[in-house]
């Protein structure tokens, strides 16, 4: 039994998989904004990552503080094995539901 994932949670996990382990919040935020082409609040990314961490899909650690960041530390995220499994299960469901709808979905966009 896999836990449910919201749409933004899926986006975050996918971005995390793209960036690899120890991706920081800013990289995640940029990746999501770049690929979805919409503005996303940083807070939304962090709130979602906290939720995913509570579910056990992501682990986090504090990085170093640099002068360029005004002395504020980075927060680094990595996806865990259950996170990858759940994302892949959700993605399988999406594909199964979308199969055969290519023309209809394409016509609407």
């Amino acid at each position, binding site marked *: 039994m896999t836990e449910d994932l919201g749409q933004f949670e899926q986006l975050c996990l996918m971005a995390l998989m793209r960036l690899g382990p120890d991706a920081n919040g*800013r990289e995640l935020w*940029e990746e999501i904004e770049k690929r979805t082409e919409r503005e996303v609040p*940083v*807070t939304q990314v962090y709130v979602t990552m906290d939720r995913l961490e509570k579910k056990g899909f992501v682990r986090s650690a504090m990085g170093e503080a640099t002068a360029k*960041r*005004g002395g504020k530390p980075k*927060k680094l995220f990595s996806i865990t094995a259950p996170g990858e499994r759940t994302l892949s299960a959700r993605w399988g469901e999406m594909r199964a539901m979308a199969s055969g709808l290519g023309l209809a979905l394409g016509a609407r966009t």
Partner: protein
Amino acid sequence: VTTFPRMRAALGALTFVWRLVEFAVDATDQRRRFPDEAARITYIEYELRRLHDRLGASAPRNDRVVRGLGALLLVPGGIYFRGRRLARLISRLLTIGDSERRPKRGLRHGRPPKWPQFLLAVFLPRKNWQAEVGDIVEQYEEKVLPKFGLRAARIWFYKRCFEEIWFVVRWRVVRLVTLVWALEWVRELWTRFANR
């Protein structure tokens, strides 16, 4: 302001004290954040240099009030930090009245404004506020400032900070408005039945 030298001096002195308070608050935080002394000193040096640049930009020239306050507040600070390099920096800070760096007008330094950062610290969730503010500051320094210039970058920074705050408080605002509306409705019902 330019026609009233005393008022200008007083404003300069106020700015100076405000910058020092900001720095003191930051420095207290640094001790907790950088337990390693060498790293902390490097960071404090960076902050002092920044402070020096800002003061050079904002203090009126040859202003005795500012110099006096500087001596009053920074010398104990220098003794407290006890580093030779820091003492040198502090002595440079005391010569701000003669600073040649003061531009004639316009925005004076490239650092992101402080007070929206303070608002973020107040409103963002306690757990991640430092990382979030750091991300926005880094984005500002690395991408926005070189690409759009100082004025547009500052506007971007303000906009971004208020968007973050709005994202956090919007449901609270909606709930508060609904609650007030509901209370008002109950009060109106009550007065209507009471008058019958």
